[in-house]
């Protein structure tokens, strides 16, 4: 039994209905708001553990809801977005949303995102320094030694490559946008930054022995960013 409380801000009644069912079957507590204004009121009065936010609300722009929540605290936000525009997702993520699910979505996908986001934010709360290592399948990262190994064998990475891998590992399960990674790894961004990141990522994948269609460690979200897998 988990006691997480989820606030769903969504105006479509039928979507709320099935979300209520799947969350309650999975032992989450769930409350609903039909518009942005109510959503914010409920957010501040109920203090939920996670917010699911539809970007297309009747009364206000979803990104403004993110802004208002983020002005107060770090409660994880999972955004529901329509497919057409990656830029919407990127904007929401850069404003502080933790993840997104594209409509139409399956319930398994939504639950997985919610689980990963909750786990992720719990770790963030304890402080990064507490964690000394990261492991995923047969991959191991020792943060102090700046060492990455797969199946016990050390993978030789450049400083930049390691920095990217470490950053993603510290946020495992969360998609980081290109802009976010560039800012944290290089400290500045210019015209060729995204290309530089993509080239580094291609090299990392080669060293990790990843094959397209079967990425195990670092997943790519086309046009948005990268995500360390989280199982």
């Amino acid at each position: 039994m988990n006691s997480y409380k989820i606030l769903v801000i969504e105006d479509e009644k039928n979507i709320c209905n099935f979300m209520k069912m799947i969350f309650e079957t999975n032992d989450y507590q769930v409350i609903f708001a039909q518009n942005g204004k109510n959503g914010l009121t409920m957010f501040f009065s109920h203090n939920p553990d996670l917010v699911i936010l539809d970007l297309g609300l009747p009364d206000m722009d979803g990104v403004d809801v993110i802004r208002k929540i983020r002005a107060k605290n770090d409660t994880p936000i999972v955004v529901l977005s329509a497919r057409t525009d990656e830029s919407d997702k990127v904007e929401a993520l850069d404003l502080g949303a933790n993840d997104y699910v594209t409509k139409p979505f399956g319930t398994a996908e939504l639950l997985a995102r919610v689980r990963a986001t909750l786990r992720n934010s719990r770790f963030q709360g304890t402080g990064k320094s507490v964690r000394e290592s990261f492991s995923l399948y047969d991959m191991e990262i020792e943060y102090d030694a700046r060492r990455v190994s797969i199946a016990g064998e050390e993978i030789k990475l450049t400083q930049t490559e390691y920095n990217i891998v470490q950053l993603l590992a510290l946020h495992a399960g969360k998609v980081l946008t290109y802009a976010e990674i560039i800012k944290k790894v290089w400290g500045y961004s210019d015209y060729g930054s995204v290309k530089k990141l993509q080239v580094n990522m291609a090299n990392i994948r080669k060293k990790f022995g990843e094959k397209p269609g079967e990425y195990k460690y670092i997943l790519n979200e086309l046009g948005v960013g990268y995500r360390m897998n989280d199982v």
Partner: protein
Amino acid sequence: MNKNIRKNILKTVLIPSLCLLVCIIIEHYLAIDMVAPAIMALAVFLVSRVTEGYVYGIVASILSVLALNFVFAFPYFAFNFSIPENIISALIMLIITIMTSTVMTQLKWQEKVRAESAKEKMRGNLLRAVSHDFRTPLTTIYGSSTTIIENYDHLKKEQILQLTTGIREDTQWLMNMVENILSITRIDNGGVRLKKNSVVLEELINSVLVKFKKRYPNQKVTVSIPDEFISIPMDAVLIEQVIINILENAVQHAQGMTELSLTVHTEGRKVVFEITDNGCGIPRERLKSIFKDYFEIKDAPVDHNKKSMGIGLAVCASIIKAHDGEISVENREEGGCIFRFTLDEEDSLSEQL
């Protein structure tokens, strides 16, 4: 807009000036008389043709009348509107101009109307076809859910599962269709240029395979792409759609298929994508029209095979065309068919870090 006006003014001044020059050369050096009015009438006609609206033509005709009067009518190289011949010829020039401009403007306007109504008709066709295609799955969804609601107590668990599975299948088909229609509107959006970003080939292929696997978990795809780093400017959502549509087409139509493969190689600056299957191939008569525009196919009576991709391959063609690439399909001698499309690799200039 401003640039347009400047262009029109330039034409209005330049064409009569040139014609005047020609007149002077002919009359002065070749000593042929009386051709000036005809040549200037031609000038006015030309100006009306190449400019927009009435104004420029009228200005050109006034310029021409003045020039004729100044250069060729007695007294030479001076204005004189007191002689009746001069006034009459000036009037005739003006009438010619106004009539030409009117005809030209009308013609241009008619052309525009015709193009627009053709587009309108295509839109209508698409809308009609789509609504028609949507009816079948919607019937399943509506019927099955109603059955469950109204007979809940009498249905066995397996029956409910069967009905809901049908609902899910048809919903997926609808989702697919919607993606395709969205893609079309994304290209057709009043000539708005595509939103192109640099996309890494390997990441594109990965994303396609992950999505495809979600839909067809049991279908294996053999992949082979170049080792080097290849970046292609594209609208990734649309190109993903192209590859998925072609793969999906193979799964649904290539009967007897045991191998499906996706290969990419480069030829100079061109990146060539090939999707090959070893199924039943495509009938000759279908081969010709397979990429026909989505609205053209639907001019024919709608076929009632719900599982037909409907507009999938036509959408592929539109997307590749919008990327200035080429798309083709042919049957293979050893059986099955091969879809091929090309995109341009990024210029090396912007590749520099």
